[in-house]
């Protein structure tokens, strides 16, 4: 960015600092990966040595005996439909809010934005009893509805901004060609919004994958736990039955999918995540 050249010493310092922080970030992650292939004895007595033999059994045990596979499936059952409907409903709402002037438009827009101000902790107790009243407490369906509702504020905000940037000519041309409202939306608007939808899809995926307090309160039977909750459960169980190696393998299983998603889509993710923050 700056055009004046930096001295060799200055460059050396810069690389030293950047290299140091890279180590701080990477070493813990590599450590957990290496440790997940060790036996319990190796973990306890030689934390620094690589495993004598790669214990793939740890992963098998975590996946089957520690129910990680079950939590994984539960997470997918909840997250995939939640993302799909979050994107659909937000695109619909964003489209109308961006392109149709009507009385109450601003009120609804700022109403959604207001939702970003409140801490989820405040809603927990009423939410718990609301779901109980609807008989959807401790059900994946209930959690899906809640996930969608709490993803809406930011996604609607983002999609409204995005829909404003769509070229009007294409939309007007489609109207002249006699496209109906729904046809227009699904055949023209949605394909045009692909980039925005992908960004928000990834953003919400990461958010829901990380979500902990909502499933903790709203899912009470262990067989229905989602991954984050199941991993925390495993961690707390650890006090009574020590299976370090299984736990480390479980951490790796939970860690890897999002890391891989990130490495594939890293450009889109960094842009997608920062856009909201920068607009403030």
């Amino acid at each position, binding site marked *: 960015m*700056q055009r004046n050249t930096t001295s060799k010493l200055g460059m050396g310092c810069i690389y030293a600092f950047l290299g140091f922080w890279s180590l701080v970030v990477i070493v813990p992650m590599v450590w957990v990966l290496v440790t997940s292939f060790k036996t319990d004895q190796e973990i306890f007595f030689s934390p620094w040595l690589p495993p004598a033999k790669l214990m793939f059994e740890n992963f098998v045990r975590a996946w089957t005996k520690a129910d990680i596979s079950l939590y994984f499936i539960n997470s997918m059952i909840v997250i995939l439909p939640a993302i799909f409907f979050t994107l659909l409903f937000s695109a619909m709402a964003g489209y109308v809010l961006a392109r149709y002037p009507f009385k109450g438009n601003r009120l609804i827009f700022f109403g959604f934005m207001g939702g970003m101000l409140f801490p989820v902790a405040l809603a927990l*107790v009423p939410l718990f009893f609301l779901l109980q009243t609807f008989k959807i407490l401790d059900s994946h369906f209930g959690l899906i509805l809640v996930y969608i509702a709490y993803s809406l504020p930011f996604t609607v905000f983002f999609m409204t901004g995005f829909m404003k940037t769509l070229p009007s000519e294409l939309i007007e041309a489609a109207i002249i060609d006699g496209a109906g409202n729904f046809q227009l939306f699904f055949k023209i608007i949605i394909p045009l919004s692909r980039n925005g939808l992908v960004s928000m899809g990834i953003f919400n995926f990461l958010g829901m994958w990380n979500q902990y307090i909502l499933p903790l309160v709203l899912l009470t039977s262990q067989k229905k736990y989602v991954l984050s909750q199941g991993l925390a459960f495993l961690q707390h169980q650890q006090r009574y039955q020590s299976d370090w190696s299984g736990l480390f393998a479980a951490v790796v299983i939970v860690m890897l999918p999002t890391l891989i998603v990130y490495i594939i889509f890293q450009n889109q993710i960094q842009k997608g995540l920062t856009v909201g923050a920068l607009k403030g």
Partner: protein
Amino acid sequence: MYKHKYRVIIPFLAPAVILYLVFVIYPYIRAMYNSLTSWKGVSANQPFVGLANYERMIHDELFWNALKHNLQYLIILPILVIALSLFLAFMISQQIRGSKTFRIIFFFPQVISIISIGVLWSYIYHPTIGILTSIMQFLRLEWFFQLFGFDGIPVWMGDPSTVRWAIGGVVVWQAVGFYMIIFLAAMEAIPITFYEAAVLDGAGRFRQFWNITIPLLWDTMQTVLIFVGLLAFDMFAITRVMVVSGSTTNRPSDVLATYLYEQAFQVSRFGYATAIAVALFLMVLALSIFTMRATRRESVEY
């Protein structure tokens, strides 16, 4: 285009608005009322007690204990996160080779679930199987901790005086990459001509950073301050997964969110827990407004 426009507007808005009203707005409004009851959750009977929950809160030592910890995080986290992320962003912005790789690496912790991070770090801090203590022993850092009155390397999670540093450190570790990317994006939006002019005027790199970059980043700084402030008032997931719950020894790591969760879902004082949540909300709101006011300056247009 806008003929029969309500035939579009209503069906397109309805799903989002209905879900939002039922599952977000209603619970928030309901919470305000619940905080005025002594509801135990078992019956439909919700005795109205006025401000009694709030009065109880004022005299509840455990509430103040948790609040004190939130406030400590509120001071420490923004300083560390902003200093580190700004520093790293500045260095990456210096036309260096491999800047893209550094960006990708620094962002890693942001995409790992906070629960994985919590489990991972609780073992890094572990006195026997963890690596942090052995690294510090290898570097002979005992003298450093003796300056602060420890016998040697502290036991991190096991010591009431270090447990919040340990948890806060993990949060910093996770957050820095994200805020670095935000600062970096803002820095790249600054027109290069500003720096060229400064170079002509003979300003060094440090002067450029201080007199050009920082003032132009002010709006971003404000946003980051609010975000990190919200983080300091949350800390729920990380605390819960790193600290053995349900024991009295977890008080040194209590924050408002974990305390109110315990009050609601472990001892069924739903009314009281909601009052704590309302207090938490008001503090978060006050913090956001205060930050916006206190950091408001003439916005520099460019």
